[in-house]
């Protein structure tokens, strides 16, 4: 038996991480000899055929290493290893993924003053949550597998082998579908783990010596390796622990049992849930009322878990690497998903800051309270329905509490995802019936199954396509999946007996697709009638307008269907030929293209001309800037996220439908996106009836910590009063000016100001402070009276700019200043300023 050795120094900039380690292991596994690697710095020795063992050795650049080969084929093995280590490995490294890089976030000045460390992630659902951290996920052994006794050693070994083969086949299948580079990289790393020698040795030992069942053995081995990797120095290696757990979960799935179950987690109070990875089903199983915030590691921003979190309005942040190490279980943290940070330590100043934040948001909500119940109506009496987009029955009561007139889009895909087979008719019926009942007479529009493209379903065996968005999806797949679709149609039609149910079909582009649906519907009607099952024979049937072709055959479709609903996301992609996921063309994905507006105008006009109803349920409804255009179009309904509804109805009340129609006409005549933007921007400029100052913006006898806090207080008041929808941006604009040169003009006054589109209308706010604030003023004296001016545009010859310059001049006058300082109450200040500056009274 010969022994060979080869010494080398690790040349890799990023050390021996998973990718080069799996290449090395690939070479070593070709041979029968025992091959070990020794890291001379740490004296760790590992099996060179195991990726996990290699990675866990934490070999860094410059570390001296030794490969030892012993066995019958040691000589060729040695030659191969030497060749690899000298010639291949030095050049096989690629830059590590950005997992190690922290991303920058610009914290508001006022927040920077009170905190030191934060964890940064991507905010995907705004809001603020506070509570103790509860870690969810990770490798758990489901109860039924834990209690199952081990069969014979051979049986258990066979289970592992079968499971490993199945997982390997699944991974190879996904690789063969030519996924993106990033996903391919993960799949390859997973493949090398599922075949990893050290992992299998460990599992085998647990079975043979520990007398464990296959499931038990896998969990133990998985935990052991994960623990080893978690203890490593680099975040990158710690993240590989997640890969190990992921593979073990997949192995467990093949052995049996519902591995994702989190049924054991009972939340005792409002908690912040932290998980590397959370499936939609896991999220649904938690008591949503107690989920104060959600912090996720690897969940993508467009994933279904995120969509669900948004529909329940849970403040959510994703992309936080190393979640489980960074957020210790039980620690009280704050999740600020308006900015995208998690604050691990709650000091008193932090607590006070966030108490103010919460008060600010609740004041703002109060402002909208009066608009919630009544139907949305413009200043000049034009009515439009505002409905909610939902994905689950649980969201309905909340949506109606926020003023939704109905459900404009009930997404049914959630029922079909994350499972091995389609839901039965009964299961669907109970959901749809529940929704119909919960709506208590309000309309609920169910969208039939919309998959393909970015929402695949394993059990339907959909083909892999180069261009899924233009391919086999929506109504196109229905004829081939007759049974699945018929079950859904039956369930919806039966639910129509219990409320005002409507049904619409996605991705329609021609009359024959509609006729196919109507034939199925007729068949179902006949069948239900024969069995004396109740249903509404006049249930409205409609189509989504997502394919531009529909715009030219509205007349033909109107003869077949009762209504239309515009899905702007897909309609924009198809019409403008833009992939919304592609960074390079992201700026083209906008509804503010004159051609797109003309398209919408034509659709609405044609639908109305043929006596039908038309609503809109796409994301165009979310951006308040688009609202004048939507009103101008004359839509019967807009449907959006429930949380946006109060603000939306409040905004509608401020608009004049007449002005909106003119705005739309101007926008359609514009020649470029920039010109349309300008049309929308100019609306504010002409809104001269909007007061520049109002009672909520004058505060007397206030207390403050300092400059940052003072400015924040004023901006909070602006936000509560609806003067800004972007308080962080506004704060940044004020500070940008303040940092150029202090606005403390002396005599106890400061006049911070800015030019920004973060303010909705030119505004003046005033705060008189009980204590003096250090402001680096011209005369060195502290400031007692702060007046904040915010204006919208650069070039403006409006009366508002003249008001500002008048105010500035008057502040140079001692009398004027004294009057402001001595005024007894808010009303006195308001009437004084109104008179001196010639402000409009309304």
């Amino acid at each position, binding site marked *: 038996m010969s022994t060979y050795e080869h010494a080398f120094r690790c040349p890799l900039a990023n050390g021996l991480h998973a990718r080069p380690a799996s290449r090395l292991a690939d070479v070593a596994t070709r041979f029968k000899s025992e091959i070990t690697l020794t890291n001379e710095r740490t004296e760790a020795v590992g099996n060179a055929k195991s990726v996990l063992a290699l990675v866990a050795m934490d070999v860094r650049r410059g570390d001296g290493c030794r490969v030892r080969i012993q066995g019958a084929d040691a000589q060729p093995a040695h030659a191969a290893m030497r060749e690899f280590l000298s010639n291949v490995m030095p050049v096989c490294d690629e830059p590590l993924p950005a997992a190690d890089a922290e991303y920058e976030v610009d914290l508001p000045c006022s927040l920077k003053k009170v905190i030191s460390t934060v964890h940064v992630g991507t905010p995907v659902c705004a809001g603020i949550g506070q509570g103790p951290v509860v870690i969810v996920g990770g490798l758990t052994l489901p109860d039924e597998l834990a209690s199952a006794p081990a069969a014979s050693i051979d049986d258990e070994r066979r289970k592992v082998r079968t499971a490993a083969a199945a997982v390997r086949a699944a991974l190879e299948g996904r690789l063969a579908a030519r996924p993106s580079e990033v996903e391919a990289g993960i799949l390859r790393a997973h493949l090398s783990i599922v075949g990893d020698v050290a992992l299998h040795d460990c599992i085998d030992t647990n079975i043979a010596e520990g007398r464990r069942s296959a499931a038990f053995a896998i969990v133990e081995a998985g935990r052991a390796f994960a623990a080893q990797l978690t203890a490593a120095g680099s975040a990158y290696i710690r993240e590989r622990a997640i890969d190990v757990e992921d593979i073990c979960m997949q192995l467990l799935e093949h052995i049996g049992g519902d591995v994702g179950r989190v049924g054991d987690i009972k939340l005792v109070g409002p908690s912040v849930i932290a998980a590397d990875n959370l499936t939609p089903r896991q999220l649904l199983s938690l008591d949503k009322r107690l989920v104060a915030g959600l912090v996720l590691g690897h969940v993508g921003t467009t994933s279904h878990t995120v969509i669900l979190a948004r529909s329940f309005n849970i403040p959510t942040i994703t992309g936080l690497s190393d979640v489980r190490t960074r957020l210790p279980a039980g620690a009280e943290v704050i999740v600020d998903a308006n900015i995208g940070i998690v604050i691990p330590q709650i000091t008193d100043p932090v607590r006070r800051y966030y108490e103010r934040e919460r008060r600010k948001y609740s004041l703002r909500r109060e402002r909208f309270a009066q608009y919630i119940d009544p139907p949305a109506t413009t200043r000049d009496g034009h009515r439009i329905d505002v409905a909610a987009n939902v994905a689950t029955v649980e969201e309905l009561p909340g949506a109606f509490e926020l003023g939704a007139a109905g459900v404009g889009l009930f997404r049914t895909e959630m029922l079909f995802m994350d499972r091995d087979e389609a839901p039965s008719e009964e299961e669907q019926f109970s959901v749809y019936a529940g929704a119909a009942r919960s709506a208590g007479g309000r309309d609920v529009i169910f969208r039939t199954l919309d998959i393909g493209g970015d929402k695949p379903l394993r059990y339907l065996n959909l083909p892999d396509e180069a261009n899924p968005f233009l391919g086999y999806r929506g109504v196109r797949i229905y004829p081939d999946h007759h049974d699945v679709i018929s079950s859904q149609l039956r369930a919806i039609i039966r639910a129509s007996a219990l409320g005002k149910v409507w049904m619409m079909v996605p991705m329609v582009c021609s009359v024959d697709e509609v006729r196919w649906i109507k034939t199925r519907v007729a068949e179902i009607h006949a069948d239900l009638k024969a069995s004396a099952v109740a249903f509404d024979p006049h249930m409205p049937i409609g189509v989504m307008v997502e394919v531009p072709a529909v715009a030219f055959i509205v007349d033909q479709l109107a003869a077949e269907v009762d209504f239309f609903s515009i899905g702007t996301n897909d309609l924009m992609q198809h019409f403008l030929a833009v992939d919304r996921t592609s960074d390079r063309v992201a700026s083209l994905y906008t509804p503010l293209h004159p051609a797109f507006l003309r398209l919408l105008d034509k659709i609405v006009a044609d639908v109305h001309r043929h006596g039908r109803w038309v609503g809109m349920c796409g994301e165009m409804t979310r951006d308040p800037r688009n609202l004048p255009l939507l009103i101008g179009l004359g839509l019967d309904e807009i449907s959006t996220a429930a949380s946006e509804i109060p603000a939306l109805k409040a905004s509608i009340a401020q608009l004049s439908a007449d002005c909106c129609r003119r705005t739309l006409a101007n926008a359609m005549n514009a020649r470029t996106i920039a010109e349309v933007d300008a049309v929308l921007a100019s609306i504010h400029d002409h809104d001269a009836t909007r007061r520049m100052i109002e009672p909520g913006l004058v505060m007397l006898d206030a207390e403050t910590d300092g400059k940052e806090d003072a400015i924040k207080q004023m901006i909070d008041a602006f936000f509560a009063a609806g003067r800004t929808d972007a308080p962080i941006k506004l704060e940044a604009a004020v500070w940008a000016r303040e940092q150029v040169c202090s606005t403390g*003009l*002396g005599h106890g006054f400061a006049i911070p100001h800015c030019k920004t589109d973060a303010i909705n209308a030119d505004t003046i706010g005033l705060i008189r402070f009980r204590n003096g604030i250090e402001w680096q003023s011209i005369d060195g004296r502290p400031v007692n009276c702060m007046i904040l001016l915010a204006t919208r545009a650069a070039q403006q010859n409006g009366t508002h*700019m*003249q008001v500002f310059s008048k105010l500035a*001049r008057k502040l*140079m006058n001692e009398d004027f200043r004294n009057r402001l300082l001595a005024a007894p109450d808010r009303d006195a200040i308001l009437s004084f300023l109104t008179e001196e500056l010639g402000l409009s009274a309304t």
Partner: protein
Amino acid sequence: MKIIAVTACPTGIAHTYMAAEQLEKTAKSLGHQIKVETQGAMGIENELSLKDIREADIALFAVDIEVEKRERFDGKKIVQIPVKEAIKDPAAVFEKLKM
């Protein structure tokens, strides 16, 4: 003295006008004649004509940014100060102009 002045601050909303106000008030109290052009967010107001410039004894720029249409002042004696100074101590500014 016959004085012409230009005030201009970065954002053009407040300090431009505060400086103008201070200069006008103080000039009046000291018995000088003054015309102040403001360059602010509303553009150029009270624009100085070539005649105004020709007839003035001295020009004062109370500015933190570039003066627009500066060519008009070619050949004229100019005293330049930061905007802050005009706001803080206008009397001292006029002292400076006398020298």
